[in-house]
């Protein structure tokens, strides 16, 4: 079972929040002693999801948590927005698919960079994406 050791909530309203947001994720990752490569993967994944949130929903919230499962510790990020939602999740998870002008690597690429990835979305109500990166994952 997961245990949440610390919680830090951040409201995101504009693109310039990206740098302070990354710093907070990095701080949490450094605190649990995550190695540089995993840190980089986590922060890159977080950047992709941050951008999606700003681009499609305009704003949202991210919960940054330090979690533990047995002896393993990790970082869990929960992105929630009240945006338009994702019409076809299976399609959005395919490499190269994008409704915006991006490369369409955001969601499938993010999933590859983390250990756990869950996405819930309801049209017209919003999207919640949770990612977990274990310290030694």
């Amino acid at each position, binding site marked *: 079972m997961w245990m949440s050791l610390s919680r830090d909530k951040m409201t995101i309203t504009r693109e310039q929040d990206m740098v302070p947001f990354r710093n907070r994720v990095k701080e949490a990752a450094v605190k649990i002693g995550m190695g540089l490569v995993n840190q980089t993967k986590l922060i890159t994944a977080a950047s992709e999801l941050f951008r999606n949130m700003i681009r499609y929903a305009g704003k949202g919230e991210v919960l940054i948590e330090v979690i533990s499962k047995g002896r393993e510790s990790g970082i869990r990020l929960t992105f929630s927005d009240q945006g338009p939602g994702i019409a076809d999740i299976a399609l959005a998870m395919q490499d190269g698919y994008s409704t915006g002008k991006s490369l369409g*690597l955001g969601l499938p690429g993010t999933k590859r960079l983390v250990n756990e990835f869950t996405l819930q979305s309801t049209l017209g109500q919003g999207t919640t994406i949770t990612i977990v990166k274990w310290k030694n994952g």
Partner: protein
Amino acid sequence: MDKIPILRMGSFLLVTIQVDLYDRLALNLENDLVQMVYQTGARGVLIDISAVSIVDSFMGRILGNIASMTRVLDAETVVVGMQPAVAITLIELGLSLKGVHTALDVERGMALLQTQYGLHTQSADDDVDELE
């Protein structure tokens, strides 16, 4: 407004990205660099990302765009100094930076432009030494 400085070294332009980029800043850099290649007639562009800890798909796309745009203006772009963790992450993300030349550091990037593309800084050595 933040701005990333572009240095001119003879027929090369040198950009050292020292801050974490957000999207607007990266887009401005793309625009400024292409303008500057046009205005100065530069033949080579070196982008040093050794201080950059994150390259995500957007930033990767900007680097690719810069390379393609400058190529159309007859200039080669070399991205140098990528950190190993960034390289690992980029490949796992699915971005291979196709069409972008890369080199380990500024010195090798410069050598690449000079030997492979036969480009030279006009007042060659002095300028280069000052910046090292």
